[in-house]
């Protein structure tokens, strides 16, 4: 009897799991379902699943004006800014983790405290800076600003990962005559790989999903990225054609969800360890 009661109690936990999973997934499933519905079906048939699933909305998005250009821009700024921020962060993190030098503490504060500067508060000053450098409406402006906002977090996470690499590993490499670069590339980076993977996915996610900067710093379709286009699309045709808006939304989400699911292990370990120190 007690055993049966215990079994019931142990399985009661599935009730909140189901409710909370529904909470997390419903907006996505509703959007996914609508992206396969026809325009009229969205307003008339009040069913959860599409009656005659159609790929029309996806076809329309993929062949819409500039779609591939926006995708290219998003991919370009995400990859380049992630690479730059990670490279810059690796160097700085290595110095902080391994060297004792004057002003170390102050320099560390100068790099880390900007983590609490919210992105949106930088929009106005950086807009002026970008205009005065003649970089308005360029991908370069996005790459530079995305890199700058990512460096503090990257440095922070990597410094804590590098600090856990046993010093003896490095000493062994140095005795074998390895230069600083060789030590970094063949010892530090491979050993701290989980941290680097976490940083990579963090940066890509930030850049791929970024909105305030791209809205302020681009003026034409030339260097626009996907989130800004999604915002404009919703503004201009949300009422007429929700299927297309939803298809566009799903298309922008899928690459990140795939990246996240494949790297989940690193994300969970690396990013949390960085956030709570």
């Amino acid at each position: 009897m007690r055993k049966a009661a215990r079994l019931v109690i142990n399985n009661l936990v599935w009730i909140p799991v189901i409710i909370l999973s529904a909470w997390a997934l419903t907006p996505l499933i509703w959007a996914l379902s609508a992206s396969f519905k026809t325009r009229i079906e969205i307003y008339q048939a009040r069913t959860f699943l599409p009656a005659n699933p159609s790929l029309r909305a996806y076809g329309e998005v993929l062949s819409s004006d500039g779609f591939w250009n926006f995708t290219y821009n998003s991919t370009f700024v995400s990859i380049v800014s992630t690479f730059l921020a990670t490279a810059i962060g690796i160097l700085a993190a290595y110095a902080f983790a391994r060297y004792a030098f004057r002003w170390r503490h102050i320099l560390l504060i100068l790099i880390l405290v900007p983590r609490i500067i919210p992105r949106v508060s930088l929009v106005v000053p950086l807009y002026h800076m970008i205009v005065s450098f003649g970089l308005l409406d360029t991908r370069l402006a996005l790459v530079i600003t995305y890199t700058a906002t990512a460096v503090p977090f990257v440095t922070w996470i990597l410094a804590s990962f590098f600090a856990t690499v046993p010093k003896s590993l490095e000493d062994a490499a140095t005795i074998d005559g390895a230069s600083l670069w060789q030590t970094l590339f063949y010892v530090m980076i491979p050993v701290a790989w989980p941290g680097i993977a976490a940083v990579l996915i963090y940066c890509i996610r930030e850049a791929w999903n970024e909105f305030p900067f791209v809205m302020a710093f681009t003026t034409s379709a030339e260097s626009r990225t996907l989130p800004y286009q999604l915002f404009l699309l919703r503004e201009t045709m949300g009422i007429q054609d929700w299927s297309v808006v939803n298809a566009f939304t799903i298309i922008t989400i899928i690459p990140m969800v795939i990246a996240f699911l494949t790297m989940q292990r690193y994300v969970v370990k690396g990013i949390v360890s960085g956030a709570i120190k």
Partner: protein
Amino acid sequence: MSSTKPVTRSRNNLLIKQLTPYLLIGPAILIVMGILGYGVGWSFMMSLHKLNPLTFQNEFAGLATYMELFTSPQFQNALLRSATLVGGTILLGIIVSLSFALSIYKIQGFKGAVRAISLIPWMVSGIAAAVMFRFLFSGNAGLINIIMESFGLAPVGWLAHPTRAMFVLILTNTWFISPFSTLIILSGLQTIDTEIYDAAAVDGCSGVRTLGQITLPLIKPMFGFSLIWLSFASFNIFDVVLPTTGGGPGRATEVLAVMMYRLAFQGLDYPMASAIVIVLLIINAFMSLFYLKTFKV
């Protein structure tokens, strides 16, 4: 280089060795200070100016812009709305993330899958989250109204009503930012030594008491970090507001960041927008300090 004397060479080597850390840090300092530091500095200087509406020049005015800002009802209302949004999101976000984290911690099997589900909203952009919630709550095609109608209730114009629009915004924001808080709390739970639960069970401790007197105190620091994250992310909210409500109806959901953006890019009042930026930064710093002190993390 063969002519270099051994002494000078070793001195050069020493110099290079001493410079190495600075050279390694150089690029990071340069880009962080050059972009982020510059941004804050520029905003601070600009906030000490005042827009002259006649000449359209920004003239130095000391703290006059701040005085005008603090006494303006628009600013006070935006601050209040920001506080409402932060309060609402913290309340809902802590409930959602704590119960999600505890359930994931408790279940046997499918742990990884449920954790992945709980984190998926975190990979979605603020814009996409907002667009999906806007659709979910749309008047004639939204799931919420369809469900309400199936229960015989009248459909509701969610986003046309000030209080309801704020409610939808809080829901959207919670959906968007609570996954990370779930992750933080979950990581705290996983560090708890399970022996303590066995001991509690032996002592006949009830489930609720175990939660309140053992689990929660043990994850107090993680709780603090969750609160920092939820407050920080909701206080600086911008992406999620524009596609859902655009600050409307009227200005019912115009929070500080949205007001700042409107002043700068529609009103071209950079001094006033910059003063809001400085206020945002100061409140952020105080929030972090407050939580760090309260939760001793």
